């Protein structure tokens, strides 16, 4: 059936494209399973554990929004490679629980898909690799350009920013980012903050 060949080729192309798209999602899902495991080990051992042998990054924290039953393991760094596997802890920003702004960034269509569901007042728990959990409350959202985030990393408050691409349902990537701002409400442990 030679005249079916173009049709088959078209179908094949469609499959490949679909497969590539699905692969990105599959990778994101599978990586989170491996990361979850590595993160548990990290908390247990106190050392960074790579999720797989050739990984270029390692889990540093876990973000959880209990109301939405959403959670994701955050990786060190926010390079494209890292973001394919999980949210990234943006370089040059503080760790969760510290004075300043901790910025985590992830893809809008995978790990931070839940971000659009997060409402003001929702509680966001961030567990660090030492096992301590910090609870933040979402108190605002902004839409900014990627290079004009307006995030002040030196603020004296204890803030958290979750960032992803905006608009949520766009198909191509643009310069706009959606930022969810949250402020620390309680450190899980009784460890005093510096200077208090």
């Amino acid at each position, binding site marked *: 059936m030679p005249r079916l060949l173009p049709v088959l080729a078209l179908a094949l192309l469609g499959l490949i494209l679909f497969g590539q798209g699905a692969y990105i999602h599959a990778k994101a899902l599978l990586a989170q399973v491996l990361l979850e495991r590595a993160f548990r080990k990290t908390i247990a051992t106190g050392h960074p554990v790579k999720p797989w042998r050739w990984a270029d990054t390692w889990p540093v924290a876990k973000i959880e929004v209990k109301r939405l039953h959403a959670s994701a393991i955050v990786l060190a760094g926010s390079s494209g490679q890292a973001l394919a596997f999980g949210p990234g802890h943006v370089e040059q920003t503080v760790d969760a629980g510290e004075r300043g702004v901790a910025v985590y960034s992830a893809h809008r269509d995978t790990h931070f898909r839940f971000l659009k569901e997060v409402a003001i007042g929702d509680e966001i728990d961030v567990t660090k690799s030492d096992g301590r959990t910090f609870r933040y409350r979402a108190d605002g959202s902004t839409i900014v350009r990627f290079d004009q985030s307006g995030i*002040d990393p030196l603020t004296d408050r204890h803030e958290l920013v979750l960032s992803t691409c905006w608009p949520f349902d766009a198909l191509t990537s643009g310069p706009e980012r959606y930022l969810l701002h949250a402020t620390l409400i309680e450190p899980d442990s009784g460890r005093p903050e510096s200077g208090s």
Partner: protein
Amino acid sequence: MTIYDACESSPQIRLSRRMRIALFFLVEGVAALVIGLAALFLSFDPAWSAEQPHHAVLRPSEARSGSLLLKTDDGYADATRLGIDVDLTVSGPTVRARVTQIFRNPTKDWMEATYVYPLPSGGAVDTLKMVVGDRIVVGDIKEKQQARAIYEQARQNGQKAALTEQERPNIFTNSVANIGPGETVLVQIEYQEPVQQSGNEFSLRVPMVVGPRYNPKPVVQSVDLRADGSGWGAASTDPVPDRDRITPEVLDPAEHAPINPTNITVRLNAGFPLGEVKSHHHQVKIESPNNATRIIKLTEGPVPADRDFELTWKPAAEKAPSVGLFREHVGNSDYLLAFVTPPAVEQAQQKPLPREVIFVIDNSGSMGGTSIIQAKASLLYALGRLQPADRFNVIRFDDTMDVLFPTPVAASSANVGTASSFVGALQARGGTEMVPAMRAALSDSNREDPNYVRQVVFLTDGAIGNEQQLFETISALRGRSRVFMVGIGSAPNTYLMTRAAELGRGTFTHIGSVEQVDERMRGLFAKLENPAVTGLSAKFSEANADLTPSVLPDVYRDEPLLLAARLDKLAGSVEIKGRIGDRPWSVTLPLANAAEGKGLSKVWARRKIADAEVARTTRQATPEDADKTILALALEHQLVTRLTSLVAVDKTPSRPDGEPLKLAELPINLPAGWDFAKVFGERPRQPVQPAERRADTGDGKVQVAALKRPVPVATPSPGTVQLPKTATDAELKMIAGVILLTVSLLLFMFTRHQTMPN
């Protein structure tokens, strides 16, 4: 199928025409898709790098500093402005720097300003002064937590306070609380650092953008040691007392946007007749009061703080002085700073030992783009420099690793050719597993053969997180090998590079652009090909010395050996011994002839602290012991470190003026060359009376609230965080895939449907 068959009624001829049209569109569509898909596949790898965060902000070395921004409830407004005055005095071997930052609040709200700024990594910050109105408040050194607490307390109480903290060894933060509406607060810090020397050239660098590049070379010197000792004391004394007599700069704010306008003045007292003095990145005018002194100022007044200031100077004589010796008496101790450049040229006639060089090249994904091009060019250059008597091998690694030859081979043209094509074909991809590569490079198969000098040249951007593991590998396995780190790209992990080179007893070379490959690699090869001065030791004949570094490193060609010591008495001499190639070498310096230096105790303490930090990371000392050492040194010498901060609190309540002040009142001492009116186009102190400070803001509650919630924080713009790209094309691809599948299914049915009746 019956349905389709049922509606099958068109004549054959119409069908085939329709089919021809369909086929035409199909072929067109497929062609377009194939091209599109090919482009997609081709762009797949670059897509990784495109998704990487924009380096401009995430990598501090590329960040530009900019204006301070004021954060308000509604977003950001251009508000508190900052001017910077840098006043440097070079006294022989040391640089005393005074950095004045001007925080001004043009708004109607009370402000807290924070400014992050870089300093040279060897800089010892020891002084913080805050100028409020007519008073100068001098900061005290405190443990970091305690300093923070004092600052917070003052902030809550509405007092003016300033805090200097170390973020990294080369990045500091100044915070200033309670700048009233229209008020101006000056914060002044001072630091001490040694002058850098390489070969015949001395240099100093003032980093002005956050993310300075470390220059790990030790340093310094400036006085001729003559046989009769008459050359001692040539270093002139600190001319700071002259400062007020220096005429102010003529500034031209019209030509410069007032974004962190920075003014720089250097008083250069080299201690020897000066030859060429050159500023590399700024236009300067240079005055020469006498042949050993220069005064350097910016030609066009303040510049935006967006590039490092680099000044180099050379002696008028052909060769730089090869020995310098300086002393300072502080407290009960004498401090000594000695720098010795071992003779180099005399030894060059000697035939160097053949070398066994192991080249390691990082071709991981993070090296993508220009980094891999620089790395390959550097390695190809290095291969070209090998001598036939040398042996070599090449290792490339990402998350996998290849060793080109099973054992190191002679550098015959055939072998070098093989290696060159191997290197030429490398692509950047994959993860970064540095430790196995380092282990392979350090495994010395010819240990029995002492006729070869073994060198490892390691080209990488150092983008790894398990630095500690790499350090441990080097210290455990280095054997007789020496590790020369070559940092590639604009923002290599300099911490990793310097530390690895230090542990591997080699050097660190930074190649920031393709243009630098030739020059920097030539410099590296001068070090690789000439015998190092090894087995160095220093012995004091009479004095008890606390020497740093405690184990003297090897010194490569044209590098000076820098020693700092604390002595119980300044008597006798110090003998420095070592071997240059295979010839023993020694020099004896009589301590009594040392010239008076400035700030040597700080330089000594800073190096001791750096030593303790190294011991901490290499686990030669427990973290607790190292911290204890650092804290004791920092408190004794008043230095800002990881564990200590400087804090200044203006005890004067923010009340109507005219009351006696509790603190010592000093006359305002605005830095010379710095003119507020000319920087800002108006007078420094606004006619806002202290009396109005609180009254303006209503009752105390509002005040506290204003300080707490609406975030009265001004921030430097390098601070604003750049966000990574966070969208995948997954959905786009999936949708395109589904559309294609649907279309092909329809077409399939369509063709099927028309072929069936046949």
